[in-house]
């Protein structure tokens, strides 16, 4: 994954507010990209760049909430902080429900803003790490044969080799071979490690017919 520095994407239609916030964030040591409108932001936005978004709630055309939805719809999980001139309850509730990190009212204080930005960047970093791990697990899973996946599922579900052999209609010895292959391919030493990995990679327990996730695109955040 990318090593680009975390960036604060700032969107506000008011140029003087935009300039002031940019300055403050830059002075506080953040990388900042400023945009005058949601459209400009969406056009230039690279989801791969780590960081968070600080959005003005009321803007002509797409407002902040619309922009948040547009980001979610494109599976971009960038954390969002809203800054609003008018802290009305319905829109803040909506924003938080849609996963906003914070909802600040103008004029926003330095402490509040920087703290929120810090939280958002942390969350982004964690999310990106989790996603990177998932990608590794999915990578390893993809090397398993269908039979090995069945075996993996049953092992994770806590079945004994004998039970697995009976369930799959084969002999215990064969199952042992499958099992050691799975451990090897998944790069784990113990069953406990395997179970942990399987949990993070969302491998369905025991269900022989269930298909395993195939790639990071369908990965889900941990529950």
């Amino acid at each position, binding site marked *: 994954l990318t090593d680009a520095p975390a960036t604060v994407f700032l969107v506000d239609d008011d140029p003087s*507010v935009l300039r*002031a916030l940019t*300055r403050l964030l830059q002075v*506080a040591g953040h990388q900042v990209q400023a945009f005058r409108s949601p459209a400009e932001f969406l056009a230039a936005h690279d989801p791969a760049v780590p960081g968070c978004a600080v959005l003005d709630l*009321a803007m*002509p055309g797409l407002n902040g909430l619309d922009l948040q939805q547009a980001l979610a719809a494109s599976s971009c999980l960038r954390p969002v902080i809203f800054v609003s001139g008018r802290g009305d309850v319905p829109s803040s509730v909506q924003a938080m429900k849609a996963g906003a990190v914070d909802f600040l009212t*103008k004029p926003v*204080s330095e402490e509040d803003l920087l703290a929120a930005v810090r939280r958002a960047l942390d969350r982004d970093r964690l999310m990106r790490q989790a996603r990177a791990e998932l990608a590794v697990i999915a990578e390893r899973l993809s090397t398993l044969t269908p039979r090995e996946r069945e075996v993996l599922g049953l092992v994770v579900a806590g079945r004994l080799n004998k039970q697995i052999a009976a369930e799959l209609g084969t002999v215990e010895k064969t199952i042992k071979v499958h099992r050691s292959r799975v451990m090897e391919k998944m790069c784990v030493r113990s069953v406990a490690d395997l179970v942990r990995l399987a949990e993070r990679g969302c491998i369905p327990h025991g269900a022989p017919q269930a298909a395993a996730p195939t790639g990071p695109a369908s990965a889900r955040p941990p529950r």
Partner: protein
Amino acid sequence: MMGVMSGVAAAGWPLRPGLAAGLVACFCAFAVMGICAGGGRAQDADRDPRILMLFSNESTQPASEAVARGFRGAFDRALPDPQHFFTEFLDGTRFSGSEHEARMLAYLRDKYAGIEVDLVVAVGPMALTFLADRPGALFPAAPIVFVGVSETSLARGLPANATGVVSSFDVAKTMNLALALQPDAKEVVVVTGAAAFDREWERRAREDLRFLEGRLKTHYLSGLPMTDLLREVGRLSGGSIVLILTILEDGTGTQFVARDAAAVVAAHAGVAAYSVYDTYVGHGIVGGYIAGFEDMGAAAAQLALRVLAGEAPRNLRPRAATAASYVVDWRQLQRWGLSEADLPAGTIVRFKEPSLWNLYREQIIALIAILLVQSLLILGLLVQKRRRRRAEESLRRSEERMSLATESANLGLWQLDVSTYRIWVNDACRTILGLDPLAPVTRESFINACHPDDRLKATETCVEAVAHGKSYDQEYRVVGPDGQVRWVLDRARHFTDDAGKSRHMTGVIMDITDRKRAEESLRASEERYRNVVETQTELICRYLPDTTLSFVNDAYCRYFERSRDELIGTKFIELVPESEQAAILGQVASLVERPRTETYEHGVLRPDGGIGWQLWVDHVIVDANGRVLEIQAIGRDTTDLRRAELEAQEKGKEVARLTRVAILGELSGALAHELNQPLTAILSNAQAAERLLARNPADLDEIRAILRDIVSDDKRAGDVVNRLRALMKRGEANLQPLNLNELTAGVLKLTHSELIERNIALTTRLTPDLPDIRGDRVQLQQVLLNLIMNACEAMFPNNGAERVLEIGTEPDGPGNLRIVVADRGPGIPAGLIDGIFEPFITTKAQGLGLGLSICRSIVAAHGGKMWATNNPECGASFYISLPVQVGGFA
């Protein structure tokens, strides 16, 4: 018979030896020969002249027949031998063109090869042209006498050996006849056919009827198919006159005998028809100014005789036919109900049925004579009797008038014999004085009749007059037996005898009670009027044109706390504030200039030093000559009313302000945002600067930029506050030149956040370079703000994409500009589109309905107007139209 005729002819025609030569056989003709011998002619003397009549048309044409009949009628009397009289018909209407003419030429040349023709009579223009175009080709030796050729046809020139009778068809005179008979006619319909001859007629008619222009309409039915023509003329009704010229051929090419065609047309026409052609008379037309074809023939015969007698044709000038005359068909007059009395003098009336008068004239005259004599006799007797009765009557009337006069005058007469003191009175006098009709009249009865209060004076006057032989006039009251009091006028005259000695007094007594009552009531009425004027609370005054007071009532005096004497003679203009004096003097001058009644209000200086208001109705009093005498004015104090009005105005302003405040309340969230933006920027900038300062070394350039930004944001916040304060404040209208685009932009700045908040897209169409209007910025911003907020609310139920607010500025006709605010809401309900500006009318659930009415009154106060329409698709548009500042377009 022949002999008799010839004799008549010889007596009537003292002509022509050549002709006489033809009559050798007739014994009667010797005398003629004797008279006329000695003339010369190239023709052989021993034979009859051979005459060829060459007709333009065919033999059955009535005109041709008539000419031939006239010609031969005149000629036959001298030329008995029909063997030497030839007729040929060119039939030129039906057959025309050079081929036909060549054929006719060959035919005639062959036919008459062996016959020496002495004279050719050309009947009609075509025959004459036929001959004239071929000089020498036919009958080279024969002179030509033409007939039935109009002057226009002669215009092309005449062969040297030709003379003739020129037809003059007088269309104009025919019209005069028609108009004499039908003076109410509005239109002349001229009927002609399609043949060349007919066309020529049409052309000529157009020329000749030019004199009718402006008097009658002229309408030409030319060259129509006969069926169409008949339908057209059949449609005509009262007010039209038909003039039929010729129809030799109709529009379908069908040939007609002109007279028959005319007869059909006349028969079908819904109105009377006229023509210039003799032959038509008797066939349905009423008549015309007509020269008879027979007469023309006869006139041609006379010329022919002279030519044959040896006179050279070129010495005989072509002459007009015998004088034409007005000719009418009596039966047609009856048919159309036209009066014979309207006919021009000398009109020939044909086909008149002989009346009884014509048949039994003498008997009728005799009978009338007898009746006349008898009547005169009776009349004489009657007159005598009547005279006697009238004399008796007049005597009786005179007596009646006399008595009526005395009675109606109701004059009492009395006479006093001075020597005997005997008194005589007439009945009227008794009645007036209330005396017993039968009792003798004495001095006492006179005195007693007097009202006790007047008795002494009346008696004294009378006694003194008698004593000094004087006359007198006096008025006094009398009391009747019923106790009723009446006023009398007693006028006595003293008469003396020849010796100068007093003989008698004669008097007239008149009842003047009614007059006295009228005088009394007039006085009472004057008294009442004076009372009314004096006790009136209304101010009443009269003043001269220079405002000098000539009369004031008590109320006026009370108002100004001055006495009448102080006021009268002074000028009321001095009681008026200086600032209004000029206007009032102007009004007074205008009143004097144009006397009328006028109402106006002006301020006055009250005695307490304050300014009051008075409303005056001024009426100009003029004398009999229209000269202004003075001006009467009735007024009242309106100070309180004025004050109340001013208060109401103030209240109105307050309502407007409160409305503004209410709108701002609605806007408050958005306005908070407007303030928040700069505040946010300021705060963030300041905090960034703080951090920068903490660094070592501090980035001073960046800090300077930050400070600049802070200053500008602070100004921005200040602007918002100022705008708000302007909208909130109460104050007088402040008129100044305004640019509508700037005004609109200012309001849009205030509503910027509100629109975003409400998710409303804004479209502006501001026309650049508009001239200024003159107005109060705050008030107009309020109006616009109101409209924008209304539009926003109207679009509340819409989806995001349909929330579009359009604001435009544009010229609105000459001298006006307008702002348009269009929304995409539900529009204005149909029934409210006119009433929406009325107070308390609203489409909003929580609306008071005052906003738009205040808006409209603000715009009206600017001399503008405001209206609303529904857009074609959806929503409504509101317009504010304002006049451009004078000189704004310069």
